[in-house]
């Protein structure tokens, strides 16, 4: 194989991984379950992407490892409960329009609440520990515990029920496949956010600064941009996305507990490592891979389900030690 072809293969192989896994799963389970599990995997992946994308940018831009990111997921989920309670008339009515408006209000509220909390969090906690990774780990883990306990103080220790809106319960049938309606909505919402983020990062000056900052923040400053201010914006956006992820995940599970964010943490870090630190595109592919693997393995080999994503991460790291699309060098 010529050098040129080897380079091309090296370049495109990470992109081909997801379609290959999807195609390989088809003969193993038959069309019906395959379609159901593929949509389920994509939905799970897109929700994980919302949470993980902010975290990867926060790390890529300023080397900040925020272990409290899960807290913003939790806050987003609880704010959703509070927002949808007075809108119960809109969610129990069998009207797709009213149901979607209620979800939209909840989504925006969760994003705003988590984003605002993120702004305060950056000022009070993160700003004190720039450039000190060990202190970052300790203080953000501590902050995670404090926020989760505050959530219990405000909303109580009991799990809260968060029923899906009336018209989004049940399933759509395509041939022998049954696909939950809510999953399709969550997939559409997640993809819309992902496309908007892609547009922001590739078509706007600020997005360009963010992408450049992930590569070399010192040079970005030398070009006249205040990287700290950009970081505050990215931190807020990242926590707002986590809040959106919490809203959608809580609604998907129909149950909200103070541990809802924690339950995603391991998967989110696996996604960051698989995708390559600092890469939003890598994060997207990593999240989809994790979502699909969880669902396929859960069906094909339930006993392996728990460790499937760790196994996936190990295999990818053996192949690409810095993840599929690494950007951050620092």
């Amino acid at each position, binding site marked *: 194989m010529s050098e040129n072809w080897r380079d091309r293969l090296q370049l495109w192989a990470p992109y081909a991984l997801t379609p290959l896994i999807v195609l390989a799963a088809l003969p193993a389970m038959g069309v019906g379950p395959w379609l159901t599990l593929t949509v389920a995997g994509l939905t799970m992946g897109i929700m994980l992407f919302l949470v993980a994308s902010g975290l990867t940018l926060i790390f890529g831009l300023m080397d900040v490892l925020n272990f409290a990111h899960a807290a913003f997921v939790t806050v987003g989920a609880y704010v959703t409960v509070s927002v949808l309670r007075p809108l119960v008339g809109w969610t129990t009515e069998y009207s797709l329009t009213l149901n979607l408006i209620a979800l939209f209000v909840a989504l925006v509220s969760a994003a705003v609440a988590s984003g605002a909390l993120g702004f305060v969090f950056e000022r009070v906690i993160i700003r004190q520990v720039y450039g000190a990774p060990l202190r970052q780990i300790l203080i953000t883990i501590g902050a995670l515990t404090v926020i989760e306990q505050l959530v219990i103080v405000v909303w109580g220790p009991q799990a809260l029920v968060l029923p899906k809106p009336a018209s989004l319960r049940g399933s759509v049938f395509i041939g022998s496949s049954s696909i939950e309606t809510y999953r399709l909505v969550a997939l559409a919402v997640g993809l819309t956010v992902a496309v908007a983020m892609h547009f922001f990062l590739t078509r706007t*000056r600020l997005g*360009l*600064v963010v*992408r*450049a900052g992930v*590569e*070399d923040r*010192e*040079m*970005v*400053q*030398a*070009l*006249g*941009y*205040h*990287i700290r201010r950009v970081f505050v914006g990215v931190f807020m956006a990242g926590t707002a996305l986590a809040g959106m992820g919490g809203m959608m995940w809580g609604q998907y599970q129909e149950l909200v507990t103070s541990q809802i964010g924690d339950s995603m943490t391991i998967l989110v870090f696996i996604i960051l490592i698989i995708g390559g630190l600092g890469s939003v595109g890598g994060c997207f592919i990593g999240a989809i891979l994790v979502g699909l693997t969880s669902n396929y393995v859960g069906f094909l080999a339930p006993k392996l389900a728990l460790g499937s994503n760790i196994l996936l991460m190990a295999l990818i790291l053996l192949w690409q030690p810095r993840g599929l699309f690494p*950007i951050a060098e620092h």
Partner: protein
Amino acid sequence: MTGAGADALLRLEGVHTDIGRYRILHGVNLEVRRGRVTALLGRNGAGKTTTLRTIMGLWKARSGRIMFDGQSLAGMATPHIARLGVAYVPENMGIFGKLTVRENMLLATAPSGFAESHLDRVLESFPALKVKWDSAAGSLSGGQKQMLAIGRAIVEPRRLLLIDEPTKGLSPAMVDQLVAALARLKGEQTTVLLVEQNFRVAEAIGDDVAVMDEGHINHTGDMAALAADESLQHRLLGLRMADGL
């Protein structure tokens, strides 16, 4: 630097800079005259890069004064210094490899985007950038990256260019091309502070020269005078440097 009354755009007075526990600059005094190219020469570890980074605010001066067009840069953040019209081309070029050539250049422009006349001038000096306009900057050769780094620095009108070892690691043909582009800048009366290890390049472009050793300036004067005085070159720079190796 070369006589009283000279029109200094940049003046460093007794600048000390520490990196960690180590003092790298020991009272640097330097003037960069308006519209001229000042070559900053010296052996590895003499403090040339530290001087540029200190001017740019990337490392903070512990003491001393840095005056840019009569304004003190002390305590000023790097983005503020950049917005005064100071452009920096670091030794590692500071190219964003995942971004395209166009995106790299766009980052250095005003919010309104490219000014056609300036962009045309850059692309005329560095035609390779036009060919690679929509390619990832990481895919460029070393010489093309250096062209991009310098092109990015001059895509907007700048008052002062700080360029750190632009010819390092380049092929002779690429060095010639770069020297031609820098000579064109010189012809446009751009003020440049150029750190360079290659004496022949410094000689070809520099109007003034400052030589550093162990964190301070130990010689300033006309480039032409230093170029004509071999014994001075040997004394200040050593054989390797003076031979342009």
